[in-house]
């Protein structure tokens, strides 16, 4: 139904270059036995949608056309694998996500949400074992969690109990990571989402309050939540409106710290773009992988770490 599943997205070692045609589970299978006839479908059957070119084992790894269901980097954000999965994710989304969106506004939130989600899947596509299908919005939520962490750091001095807030966030991260080591949970999308959230957050969140004092910007939150009236003051000196009104004036009289922070933001944005490009290139062209990476998402218990390896590779 659209999960991130690498064999539907490109030629995969072990499939297109296998010695025999790999049988796939049919969508209507109810058996885990690899010998059951309901597990003898073609790749195209499994991938669904408009189908994919079935691997021709005589042609090897470079055969074209390749399976190319690229939307499998995006669609899994909306899929979930079970009631518990969706419940936990939605709980987190409707508490932390809602709060964060009310703080930073819908546009920024949407940007981080979707970018983290997609990046999480791109990471997973690159580094997770190839036959694991991955779904869920936890990559997105990890990105938002990273924003929460950044917001905490930025406003450290103004919080009544910053340490306990930090502990909550760290606890959350640790628990999720440990749970992600269990079979069936994909840590890569968590890790990727978190990293993307951190970097994007630096790019688009407001500057830390300590910095704002030093460079003379108001420390008010993004927009006052409770009031109906808009504050014009902030827009006069900062923000897109001011920039479009007098572009050169926007830059006059700014302190070095302001410039430094903007430089950091630009660097972060560049970093984001580079990361996406590199990983996507790697996924489609270079195919380098790392053999130890799977241990970020599995524990060497029983055969957990061989889940997702294509038989024969």
């Amino acid at each position, binding site marked *: 139904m659209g999960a991130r599943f690498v064999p539907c997205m490109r030629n995969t070692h072990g499939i297109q270059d296998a010695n025999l045609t790999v049988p796939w589970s049919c969508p209507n299978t109810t058996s885990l036995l690899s010998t059951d006839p309901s597990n003898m479908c073609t790749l195209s059957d499994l991938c669904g949608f408009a189908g994919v070119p079935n691997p021709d084992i005589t042609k090897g790894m470079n055969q074209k056309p390749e399976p190319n269901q690229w939307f499998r980097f995006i669609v899994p954000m909306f899929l979930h694998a079970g009631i518990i999965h969706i419940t936990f994710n939605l709980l987190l989304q409707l508490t932390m996500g809602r709060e964060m*969106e009310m703080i930073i506004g819908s546009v920024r939130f949407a940007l981080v949400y979707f970018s983290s989600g997609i990046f999480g899947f791109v990471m997973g596509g690159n580094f997770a074992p190839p036959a694991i299908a991955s779904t869920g919005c936890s990559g997105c939520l990890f990105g938002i969690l990273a924003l929460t962490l950044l917001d905490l750091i930025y406003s450290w001095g103004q919080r009544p109990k910053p340490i306990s807030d930090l502990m909550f966030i760290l606890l959350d991260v640790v628990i999720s990571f440990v749970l992600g080591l269990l079979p069936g949970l994909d840590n890569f999308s968590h890790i990727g989402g978190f990293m993307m959230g951190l970097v994007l957050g630096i790019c688009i969140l407001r500057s830390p309050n300590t910095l704002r004092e030093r460079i003379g910007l108001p420390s*008010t939150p993004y927009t006052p939540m409770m009031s109906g009236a808009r504050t014009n003051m902030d827009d006069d000196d900062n923000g897109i409106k001011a920039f479009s009104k007098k572009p050169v004036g926007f830059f006059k009289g700014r302190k070095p710290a302001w410039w430094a922070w903007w430089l950091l933001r630009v660097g972060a944005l560049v970093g984001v773009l580079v990361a996406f490009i590199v990983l996507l290139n790697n996924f489609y062209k270079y195919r380098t992988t790392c053999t130890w990476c799977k241990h970020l998402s599995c524990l060497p218990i029983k055969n957990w770490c061989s889940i997702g390896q294509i038989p024969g590779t």
Partner: protein
Amino acid sequence: MAANDYYNSHSNPYGGNSYGYDEPHHYNEPIPPPAPPSSTKPPQISTDVSPISTTSKYYGRQNYSGGHQTLGSTDNGYYMGGAGAASHENDQYADNIPLKSKYQKQQGSDEFLGQNTQYQNAQYQNSQYPPSPEAQRPLPLQDRPRGRKGWFSGKIPWVVYVVTVVQIAVFIAEIVKNGTLVSTLEVVCC
């Protein structure tokens, strides 16, 4: 309130209507001029300040009633009229210099939400900006509307709601599709 009486008895020019706390949402006052520069008196963080602090519960929601144009505030540039009544010699000093810089250093920045002891409310003078944007600052973190009543008031987090709805819908579709594929459900419609 005792504090009110105290300041009213000092011919408070604000006319005793400086406590607009019960009307927290009147933000349509024109932005009052910045706190007039206070005199060169040394700051008096003394006991005459603290009685007022008890009256200003919601530092972030104080608003200006009409009579606060001359914030004849002293040393503590009370930007909030409600608390600004601290200065009892306000009549004579029309040019109070806001000592924001001094106070910012002394107290750090407690402009942000969480940090709201009542004592600090009274000391709330470290703002260099016209008061009302900060008057309109959201409540301290712990007072923000949470829970059920906050769901559709104020700013609505559209993205979260839309995405949640989509995810739930897709989940139901997943279950239905799986059900039909393994023949658990019979497709009736469509």
